[in-house]
């Protein structure tokens, strides 16, 4: 998918993206294009506004009061930090995270599916000494988690899952895409198994992070200093 897409084609893709009917590959390609193309982002925003008027026309259905209690507990907003026990409380084991306000990129739609469940299940997550500030889960086209990225004061702790296919012929590289439009900044190579602690780039404290991106590179990393082929993007979220 390139910038040569006609307005009409891009518009149709954006419409189906918002509707939710794009095939996985095309959906991810459009997401990647949105990293660099203002035109693509605006097309998607236009259709979000158009189609979600349908959702806005639905009559309200009030959710149970437990929804707010859980939100409050996850964000550490209220005094109800301890949620009630029970099988209908799937998120209660999540380690409370620091609740500082973290500016992030625009709302990235397909990030972190099952983020909380992944967080619960990965070994070592809850054994770290300090609570993580921000996390991202990088997923493939079928929403399977490939890596978790845990941004702490010590660095970026990257954990690979078994879904990652190891290869000696290429590497995966992690990039910071800043909201200010600057060129992506390399954060280092991703592990193809186990964990790796990458240095914490000073930009994390200086710019708004739009998304993290993962590219496929020749062995050793990008030869040009810029991503060769962006495969995935993920939003960094504070929970």
């Amino acid at each position, binding site marked *: 998918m390139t910038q040569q897409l006609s307005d009409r084609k891009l518009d149709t893709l954006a419409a189906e993206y918002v*509707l939710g009917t794009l095939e996985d590959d095309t959906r991810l390609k459009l997401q990647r294009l949105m990293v660099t193309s203002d035109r693509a982002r605006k097309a998607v*925003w236009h259709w979000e506004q158009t189609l979600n008027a349908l959702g*806005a026309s639905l009559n309200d259905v009030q959710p149970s009061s437990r929804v707010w209690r859980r939100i409050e507990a996850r964000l550490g907003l209220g005094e109800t930090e301890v949620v009630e026990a029970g099988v209908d409380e799937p998120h209660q084991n999540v380690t409370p995270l620091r609740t500082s306000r973290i500016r992030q990129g625009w709302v990235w739609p397909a990030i972190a*599916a099952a983020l909380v469940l992944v967080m619960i299940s990965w070994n070592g997550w809850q054994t770290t000494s300090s609570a993580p500030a921000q996390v991202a889960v990088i997923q493939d086209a079928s929403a399977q988690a490939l890596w978790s990225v845990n941004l702490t004061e010590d660095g970026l702790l990257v954990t690979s899952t078994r879904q990652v296919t190891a290869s000696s012929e290429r590497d995966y590289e992690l990039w910071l895409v800043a909201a200010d439009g600057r060129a992506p900044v390399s954060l280092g190579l991703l592990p193809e198994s186990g964990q790796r602690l990458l240095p914490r780039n000073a930009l994390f404290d200086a710019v708004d992070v739009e998304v993290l991106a993962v590219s496929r590179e020749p062995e050793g990393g990008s030869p040009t200093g810029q991503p060769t082929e962006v495969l995935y993007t993920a939003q960094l979220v504070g929970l």
Partner: protein
Amino acid sequence: MNETDVLKLLMQTAEGNAQAFRQLYDQTSGKLYAVSLGMMKRRDLAEDAVQDAFVRIWHNAGEYRAEKGAVLTWMISIVRYRCLDLLRSAKARREHLTDGDVDLAGEPEDTDTPEGALNAGRDRIRIDECLDELEDQQRHAIQLAYFRGMTHQEVCGQLDLPLGSVKSWIRRGLQQLKRCLE
């Protein structure tokens, strides 16, 4: 729900005002839950999606821009993408299961009054006038995808139509909608 009020609450939320966030939740959660329930079909899953959406809204309130549309539609986008993500994830997991014990959406609609069910409990808006101009099944396909989060394949099964027809009908229908709305 007044757009100016909601925008003000969102801006206060962006500044970390938890009380404003609570008011924003009170004013909008019914709408987000209605969207979510239609897609997820199960209350517990729909609640999870709403919960995730509001956590994200808290963190992203400062990223809202007027060019992204009205606040409410922006918030609905967040919950719908979350629902789509959960549905995709569940479908991916289901492919790895042998005993079919994933119990997410996918049951056929009541075929006697499918459109009635989709449109029950909502007001007619401008886009409905444009939807009315589409062929019946074309309109129904778009509504199933929007309100139920159905894939092309699922719409095919629901409407008993060939996959190619569903794909092109949805695509042409969206283009026609755009022309109508302009």
